[in-house]
């Protein structure tokens, strides 16, 4: 949990998590969702444990984001079940799921545009703030305490993700890389047990990607389970403990990075696909 342990990220590919990996957090079974006649996800099953990084990869349109949306409650799956931290959450509202401890980021950075960086991160703490309408109107001591604590926590998370710009700027005034960081800080502010990252590396340069890897490991070392959608194979192979491969909504492989690299089905899906689709 402390700063010291977060710096101890393994530089090499992690195949076995050892004792760091804890209890089972998320169990997805036979998940399927379709829109009209199109089966976006057709039978996806995987598990995530505390302190584990699992990547979901697949060609464009393979159903990765749809799967994320089903897990986090934005879509209602047609079949299958999602159990999170021992509780079935298959048809619960996204806000309920977040309160239970699952946070997510979005494929295209989606920050609250009319709010400052600090307000964005504070919004993530919504469910953990003990203040009510009257407190806010009257500025009771309880309100002041909770706002002060909230500001400090928000700054703590911003420092944690290595945000370096001014936190009272509007988010639209920030460069793209910083916006990505704010989004991760905001997700962390919900105090998640499991973090879903939807293409966190998209649009980042080489340096920023390296830094992102460090950050993801740092979050993992806090004991948070991480599910990652990513296109950058270098990044995925580098930090994942396990990889789930999707193609046309179907799960075609699940294994360690070494197993996935050599899996003939995966290779066929990636190479064969590109020729067909041009």
């Amino acid at each position: 949990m402390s700063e010291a342990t977060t710096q101890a990220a393994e530089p090499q590919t992690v195949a076995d998590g050892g004792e760091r990996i804890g209890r089972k957090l998320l169990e997805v079974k036979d998940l399927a969702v379709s829109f009209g006649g199109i089966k976006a996800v057709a039978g996806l099953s995987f598990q995530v444990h505390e302190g584990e990084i699992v990547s979901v990869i697949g060609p464009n349109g393979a159903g990765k984001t749809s799967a994320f949306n089903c897990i986090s409650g934005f879509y209602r799956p047609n079949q299958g079940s999602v159990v999170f931290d021992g509780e079935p959450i298959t048809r619960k509202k996204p806000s309920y799921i977040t309160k239970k401890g699952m946070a997510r980021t979005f494929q295209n950075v989606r920050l609250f545009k009319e709010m400052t960086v600090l307000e964005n991160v504070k919004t993530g703490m919504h469910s953990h703030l003990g203040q009510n309408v009257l407190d806010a109107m009257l500025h009771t001591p309880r309100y002041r305490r909770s706002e002060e604590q909230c500001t400090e926590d928000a700054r703590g998370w911003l420092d944690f993700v290595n945000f370096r710009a001014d936190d009272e700027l509007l988010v639209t005034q920030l460069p793209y890389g910083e916006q990505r960081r704010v989004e991760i800080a905001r997700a962390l502010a919900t105090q998640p047990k499991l973090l879903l990252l939807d293409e966190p590396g998209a649009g980042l340069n080489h340096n920023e990607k390296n830094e992102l890897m460090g950050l993801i490991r740092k979050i993992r070392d806090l004991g948070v389970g991480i599910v990652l959608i990513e296109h950058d194979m270098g990044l995925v192979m580098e930090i994942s403990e396990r990889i789930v491969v999707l193609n046309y909504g179907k799960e075609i492989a699940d294994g360690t990075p070494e197993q996935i690299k050599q899996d003939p089905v995966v290779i066929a899906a990636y190479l064969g696909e590109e020729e067909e689709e041009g």
Partner: protein
Amino acid sequence: MATSTPRLQAPKPFIERPPAITGILAPDRFMKLVALVLFVGALVLPFITATPYIISILTSAMIYIVLAMGLNVVVGYAGLLDLGYIAFMAVGAYTSGILTTQFGLSMLETLPFVVLACIIAGVIIGGPTLRLRSDYLAIVTLGFGEIIRITANNLKVTGGPSGIHGIPTWSFFGWSFADGLDIAGIHFGPKILFYYFVLIVGIGVAVIAVARLGKGKLGRAWKSVRDDEDVSEAMGINGYVTKLMAYIIGAIWGGFAGTLMAGHLSAISPNSFEFLYSALVLMAVVLGGMGSTPGVIIGALFVSLAPEFLREFSEWRFLLFGVLLVVAMIFRPRGIWPANAVLPFLKKREIPQVPATEAVGVLGEDELAAIDEADEEEKR
């Protein structure tokens, strides 16, 4: 649950930040000072000029400010377009009007009923419709506004088209504004007392309360729903409940303004709650700056006072009023005083310059080298 994982604790901030701005030119403090000066100015004003006309239009203007602050919660903070907001004012005005003239309650005693009626009205209109988004919601609220007006027009208890007359002014435990008040040899007439009442309770309490709400937990939830409803859900915010709260608080403010208006005019009729007035209040919010307290106050003053200043143009005045509005929206599309706007001469925060090399701060040098090594190994 004992078995569940402990929640994450936020790390302590470890980066030094520029100190908070102090002094008279700090934006927050400066605005509070301006507000105080204006408030004192409004307190002193009746001593300078106290013609019934001036006091009357200023009282109306302040009631408009209360009304606009209520709509600011719905439209400015929560981003829900409400085209029938004046209906809540009607609910408040009629509730207190009926209870005072027919049941003999004093204005103060009607207040709990007004709040209750407005909460019910807010839930009735909000409950089933808040699942709708933007345009659809606007149309439903438009319909709601008309339903309330037409109902008031046709019921016996509301006095039909002629409305309710002879509504008493506010009274407190037997003492009424109508009795007047003598302090140190100066006589305060009922209208002036009511002016002070609206100034202190309406502006002093209603405006500050809404401005503060906008900065707290609920305010952030509202703004997040306005900016991106899906993401707001992903932050653990129940969008439906949050929007309903905006509706209820907006309704209470509207009802309170209605009660003030009933006491001010002593007569209400369905004509006072036509769509035009919904549009005018909405205009006050949009013209002033959505979600911005100073903006909404300016907007409400403009909307309520401009027609008075343009009176000498007689029948041309609403045309001129319209032209002024169009011009204002062309030159200030985000409102006269947008939210987040800061006066240019006030102190700005220092923005720390980030050295470019620091961008790779999370990984140490060794770790970076190790990653590079691993990359090269892979290539081989």
